[in-house]
């Protein structure tokens, strides 16, 4: 039920309402409303109950296990929130003079240095507002680099077929043609396919490592050599940075530009579409092109580096300098963990994933890449169960909701039939992971005896199984207010 439907004429709450001010004399007659603004009329208690009840319907990392592959839904330490929300940060106006913002700028400068060290890059800009914008600025820098060298014939970006959909979209947005290459049966880039598309027209390649298939690209050094030899640059999609934090880094692998999803790897509540932070890191040759503003330090003073200071920059990506709140949370998270802590993050992320993978295999699930060790996530395929029992990835995902578990990512990556991409993250205990295995095993057993029951799942959620076709073709997202 919407708050509008609970509205009772004349009922009001004073707690949040501003003093009434008559502004009618300030607004010309023709611009004034002819009718009332149909807002809901509710008491303070009505409002409190309404939104408390709505919040109880949320499925969140704070309430339940959330093994959503490729999304790194790990626990976000409360300290990140409380420190990032100190009055001194919250009250700082984005246009406040740098001399009044030295504390905030020092934090951002230090965060740039930490990220630079952990990824082994030569420069970091925190300004992209989310992963997709980080990707966009990364490929825009690749283009700016080639253009700056008057190398205008490089029109193609290579993308493996396992890539996130944002990769080809980014390349197209930057004016490139996409060349898709195959993955071999062990989940690595097919080197013959790479050789076939590399040439003087190659601007670069976009790779995720570990890949979306949940395996480490073991031939990355060879790939980097081949792409560089052809004159192209390597872009690192940081979606899976959580798996390698403190252990290896994109710099060593030979990448020229990377983006990090700070909201994932460096812990900010996410999943609702933002806000995020898609900080980018670059190698030496891309330094002049970094998006502005980023933070510099001169004579002990911190200041924003702007387009005036960096004339070759790809420019400004938003009105200000990234999402301050997310970057501050990432900074606190980095300080909480320190160097050793970051290594523990990737150690436990991979340990949990491999433990879960082996246990699921033992209770009868098929792995997509049996021969490979998992990175921080792995893929189960229900191809056999779909054929023999009628249990699809979608059915299993819905049934998990009745077990109070969030479903893993389903039907991604597209290469694997009836797949579940499962990422437990480092913040879950053995007991939670074991409970997930039990839930999965229970559903699999149920499928053998009563598949019809699973086809109707979920039973316990507020909204049952949706008519997905109707939801896409006739979305009804508008509530019409009956203004009185």
């Amino acid at each position, binding site marked *: 039920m919407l708050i509008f439907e609970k509205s009772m004429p004349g009922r009001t709450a004073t707690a949040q309402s501003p003093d009434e001010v008559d502004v009618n004399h300030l607004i010309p007659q023709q611009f004034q409303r002819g009718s009332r603004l149909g807002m809901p009329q509710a008491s303070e208690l009505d409002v409190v109950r309404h939104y408390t009840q709505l919040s109880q319907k949320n499925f969140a990392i704070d309430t339940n296990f959330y093994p959503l592959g490729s999304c790194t839904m790990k626990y976000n330490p409360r300290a990140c929130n409380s420190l990032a929300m100190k009055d001194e940060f919250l009250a700082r106006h984005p246009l406040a003079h740098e001399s009044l913002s030295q504390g905030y700028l020092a934090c951002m400068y230090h965060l740039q240095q930490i990220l630079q060290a952990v990824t082994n890059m030569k420069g970091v800009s925190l300004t992209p507002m989310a992963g997709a914008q980080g990707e966009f600025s990364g490929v825009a820098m690749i283009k700016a680099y080639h253009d700056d060298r008057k190398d205008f014939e490089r029109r193609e970006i290579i993308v493996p077929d396992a890539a996130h*959909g944002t990769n080809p979209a980014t390349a197209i947005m930057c004016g490139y043609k996409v060349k898709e290459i195959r993955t071999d049966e062990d989940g690595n880039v097919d080197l013959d396919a790479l050789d076939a598309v590399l040439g003087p027209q190659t601007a670069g390649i976009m790779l995720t490592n570990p890949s979306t298939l949940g395996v480490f690209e073991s031939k990355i050094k060879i790939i980097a050599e081949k792409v560089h030899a052809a004159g192209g640059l390597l872009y690192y999609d940081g979606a899976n940075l959580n798996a390698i934090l403190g252990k290896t880094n994109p710099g060593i692998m030979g990448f020229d530009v990377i983006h990090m999803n700070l909201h994932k790897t460096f812990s900010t509540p996410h999943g609702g579409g933002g806000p995020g932070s898609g900080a980018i890191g670059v190698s030496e040759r891309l330094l002049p092109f970094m998006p502005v503003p980023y933070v510099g330090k001169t004579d002990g003073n911190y200041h924003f580096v702007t387009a005036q200071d960096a004339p070759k920059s790809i420019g400004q990506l938003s009105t200000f300098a990234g999402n301050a709140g997310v970057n501050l949370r990432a900074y606190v998270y980095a300080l909480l963990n320190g160097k050793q802590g970051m290594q523990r993050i990737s150690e436990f992320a991979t340990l949990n994933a491999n433990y879960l993978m082996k246990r699921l295999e033992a209770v009868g699930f098929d792995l997509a890449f049996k021969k490979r060790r998992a990175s921080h996530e792995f893929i189960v395929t229900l*191809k056999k169960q779909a*054929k023999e029992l009628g249990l699809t990835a*979608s059915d299993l995902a819905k049934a998990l909701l009745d077990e109070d578990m969030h479903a893993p990512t389903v*039907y*991604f990556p*597209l290469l694997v*039939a009836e797949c579940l991409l499962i990422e437990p993250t480092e913040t879950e205990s053995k007991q939670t992971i074991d409970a997930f295995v039990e839930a999965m095993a229970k559903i699999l057993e149920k499928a053998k005896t009563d598949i019809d029951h699973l086809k109707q799942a979920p039973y316990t959620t507020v909204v049952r199984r949706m008519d*997905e*076709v109707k939801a*896409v*073709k006739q979305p009804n997202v508008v509530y019409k207010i009956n203004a009185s």
Partner: protein
Amino acid sequence: MSYVPDNLKYTASHEWLEDLGDGKYRVGITEFAQEQLGDIVFVELPEVDESYAQEDECGVVESVKTASDIYCPLVGTVTAANDALEDTPELINDSPYDDGWIFELELGEDADLGSLLSAEDYRNSIVDDE
């Protein structure tokens, strides 16, 4: 086993081609492809009079599960597109080889017909995935 008519030609990327004569071919996606995609909710058709190289992306089929590119099976120019799919994309689910056709193609001069698969070859290519 999904239905694979003997009289059509196929691609590894699950398009079918029907020979209409005079170098013209009708193109759609196979029954197997629509089964894999699930309920189709949107089709982006290629533009009529547009020319494509073999394996160029020339359209998109979007289902509740995923979005998948349609690849031009041979070099050629699009002469017609099935406008009915704009309002009723589910025709591809209901009738992949008939009412659910996607576009018609007039082959370019150097079209490589030999690169297409026969019905038997195509059946063999999908047998492991069924």
